[in-house]
């Protein structure tokens, strides 16, 4: 039975349970709800939750576990000899899955009868049969793959029957158990509320699960990569030259240099402009000017990065090329360059720096300003010699947060920075970054088991560690500083 219908049936059961539970509680109290321990709706909710939550939990766990169990058991059955020399177990397994899914599709479309699909032999006709229902196979089906695919199908079918039976049993069991407890003196409110509390905790734990998912998927694939490619080369090699035929050189240093260079240019644009804008807005501007200028500048933060990417590729790049290109100063070969991406990223970061610094400057106590004015300092002297030193740790924190944004930014560099990895000092050269290479290594047709694709996970790990470190450090500084004046 499809999961969709299963969920629907369980949902219907819960709804009916609500009505019945409520009615039963009222009946046991002789129709007088004052005799009940809890409000009647709690008795209904108790039955509904008992039927719904365990059953849906089982569906969720089963859906994740079933493919894992089946995969493990089948890949254990495939003999070493069935794996061609140029291939790997995971590729054979994906073939098995594709054949199995194709047979299911053929049966559901009526091309094959269910019995015919079970008794197929690997005589070279399967590829055509599956081609007819739109499942393309790379090569012909060997007997080993076919038998594995048949096992896969039977296990899948059995699994789905077991799921249906277990879930319905669990839902019904919960239903009956909760109904049997529904009496006037049963403390339904306490039970329901502790159940809801468990759900709330589960929702809050999703944040932990997400982090765990990120860390685990990065770590496992990175280990996989380092098995195929030495870690020392990855961290120290000065060349980045992936070739999907093998023999790639995958050194991260040119990518890190590109990332760093672009981020530095971006910060050189964003920090002075953002900082001065924040100073003006918080110290000089009248409320009317502030009310207009602050939201306008913050619009820049709400624009999606794809827009900035396109702006870099199609507007800023050609503009810079006119000035610094062959017809101008001759420093630039193409529109995509470190400068292009850095400038546009700087524009993107202006509101980020300005609103963070604005908050921090506003948090400096007024008494410090008044003291400085009282000594005869002008406004700018007060800002430079009193407010900025007081706000400095916070501002450094804001700049670090902006730097972590710049390092993790993807779309602007994918479109604006070029694709060539090189170590150069010229800001008008095309360079590439860690994020841009993650995209290019994972969006090709490469096999996921090859070092050329797996390197993206090692790059992602590096990126994750760097940005996480910067963020934790920056938040630590900002928090420490805030406490100082509170």
């Amino acid at each position, binding site marked *: 039975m499809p999961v969709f219908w299963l969920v629907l049936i369980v949902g219907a059961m819960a709804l009916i349970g609500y009505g019945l539970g409520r009615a039963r509680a009222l009946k046991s109290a002789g129709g007088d709800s004052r005799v009940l321990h809890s409000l009647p709706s709690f008795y209904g909710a108790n039955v509904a939750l008992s039927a719904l939550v365990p059953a849906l939990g089982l569906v969720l766990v089963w859906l994740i576990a079933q*493919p894992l169990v089946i995969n493990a058991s089948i890949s254990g059955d495939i003999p070493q000899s069935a794996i061609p020399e140029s291939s790997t177990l995971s590729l054979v397994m994906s073939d098995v899955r594709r054949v199995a899914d194709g047979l299911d599709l053929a049966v559901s479309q009526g091309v094959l009868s269910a019995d015919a699909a079970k008794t197929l032999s690997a005589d070279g006709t399967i590829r055509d049969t599956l081609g007819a229902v739109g499942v393309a196979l790379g090569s012909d089906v060997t007997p080993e793959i076919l038998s594995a695919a048949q096992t896969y199908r039977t296990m899948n079918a059995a699994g789905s029957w077991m799921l249906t039976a277990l879930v319905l049993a669990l839902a019904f069991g919960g239903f009956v158990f909760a109904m049997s407890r529904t009496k006037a003196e049963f403390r339904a*409110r306490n039970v329901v*509320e502790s159940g809801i509390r468990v759900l*709330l905790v589960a*929702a*809050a*734990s999703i*944040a*932990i699960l*997400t*982090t765990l*998912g990120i860390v685990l*998927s*990065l770590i*496992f694939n990175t280990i996989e990569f380092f098995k195929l490619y030495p870690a020392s080369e990855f961290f120290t090699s000065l060349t980045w030259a992936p070739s999907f035929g093998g023999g790639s050189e995958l050194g991260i240093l040119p990518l890190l240099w590109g990332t760093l260079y672009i981020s530095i240019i971006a910060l050189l644009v964003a920090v*002075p*402009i*953002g900082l*001065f804008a924040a*100073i*003006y*807005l918080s*110290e*000089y*501007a009248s409320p009317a000017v502030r009310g207009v200028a602050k939201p*306008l500048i913050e619009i*820049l933060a*709400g*624009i*999606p*990065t*794809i*827009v900035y990417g*396109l*702006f870099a590729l*199609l*507007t800023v790049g050609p503009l810079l090329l006119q000035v610094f290109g062959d017809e101008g100063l001759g420093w630039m070969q193409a529109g995509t360059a470190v400068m292009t991406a850095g400038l546009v990223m700087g*524009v993107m970061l*202006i*509101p980020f720096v300005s609103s963070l610094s604005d908050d921090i400057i506003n948090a400096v106590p007024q008494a410090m300003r008044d003291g400085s004015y009282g000594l005869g300092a*002008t*406004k*700018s002297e007060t800002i*430079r010699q009193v407010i900025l030193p007081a706000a400095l740790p916070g501002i450094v924190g804001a700049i670090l*947060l902006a730097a*972590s944004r710049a390092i*993790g930014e*993807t*779309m602007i560099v994918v*479109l604006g920075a070029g694709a060539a990895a090189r170590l150069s000092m010229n800001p008008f050269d095309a360079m590439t970054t860690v*994020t841009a290479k*993650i*995209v290019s290594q994972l*969006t090709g047709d490469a096999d*996921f088991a090859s070092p050329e694709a797996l390197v993206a996970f090692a790059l*992602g790990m590096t*990126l*994750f560690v760097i940005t996480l470190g910067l*963020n934790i450090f920056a*938040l630590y500084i900002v928090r420490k500083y805030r406490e100082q004046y509170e």
Partner: protein
Amino acid sequence: MTDATATPQAAPATSLVAADARTQKRNRAERRFRAYGMAAILTGLFFLVVLVSSILYNGVGAFQQSFVNVPVYLDPAKLDKNGTGDIEEIKKVSTFGYAPLIQDGLLSEVQKSGIETPLTKSKDMKNLLSASAAAEVRDYVVANPEQIGETVEFRLLASSRVDGYLKGRVKREDVADDKNISVEQLDLTDQLRDAGIVSKGFNLSFITGADASESRPEQAGIGVSMLGSFFMMLVVLVLSLPIGVAASIYLEEFAPQNRFTDLIEVNISNLAAVPSIVFGILGLAVFIQFAHLPQSAPLVGGLVLTLMTLPTIIISTRASLKAVPPSIRDAALGVGASKMQSIFHHVLPLAMPGILTGTIIGLAQALGETAPLLLIGMVGYIASNYPDGFASGFLDPNSAMPAQIYEWAKRADPAYYERAWGGIIILLVFLLTMNAIAIILRRRFERRW
């Protein structure tokens, strides 16, 4: 007698009214500093103006498209060779059978309106018309087979070169090496425009239509990927609102001060700062490699964006829960409500406007996000088919608006750049609307206690 030869006091070197050199210097420094601040603000606003005007300037063209009015004689000898009128027979004629008819129609129209041109063969008309024109005529004939033998007036898409020429993108001097158009054909385009045969009109199919292959930019539209984005946002809304609100209620109202709570808090604030591309890696590794969900499906995109939006929603929801004064909770507890009842019946409804505002802003962020979608395969896929229904909207491969814009920006034909800018206008209109709704909600329902 004192020898009061008091020398008159030396007049002060400077007057209090006229500033001395040092004060003047300090005042100049003051003015300079102020000017730097003003310049920074103006630079920021200047960038905003440049960005917006370059989007508008480059993108407005995508909403206009050139059309050619062609009377096409639906020749029975070609379209219905046996004269049976049988629809199956008519369907056998491919678009290659229709193209010459259209070209003949355009040539006769050119000759009829007395335009002098060196182009006298019907083949010469091919480059003026979109490659999609034949399919459009064929669809019409298959739908109305009784029209065969008549001359029907069609309003067909002009080719992207003609369209670009009329919009000023394709220049006369650039087409020397272009095998898709010649200078003579551009001359003819001018004459056709003067004769009213070629004209520009509003391009509705850009907003509602599907993406087209690389060689037919004039036909490409953003409609299908808009649906992809819609289904993704549905997933994000349905998952992130309840989960986000539940998590915030726990953290704000129930969580005891312990290690577990701290762990959750640290995780949430870090997830908010993780680069979006890392969420794409997570989606690829967990949802596609591990769980074998379909690639390019809006469901997977929605799941990834949900994980990305959750921290935003949790942070804003907690802020609005915190803004509800404790006296409301105390009053509810005082009349006998349980803690759960006081929160669900009193605190949550009062915090709802704030929660919705935060959710809309989170959704707007998710709508414009591109990088994670690249990794789960929502680019490189030509979104040319509308989903068949609700389930296929979630599970069939599709694109999303920002991914579609990226896809267009990567294609070689500059005609696609115009589409990309146009797509950005549509995307920004959506974002603007969502943010405006959020602001109105906040203004309308925000309470100060």
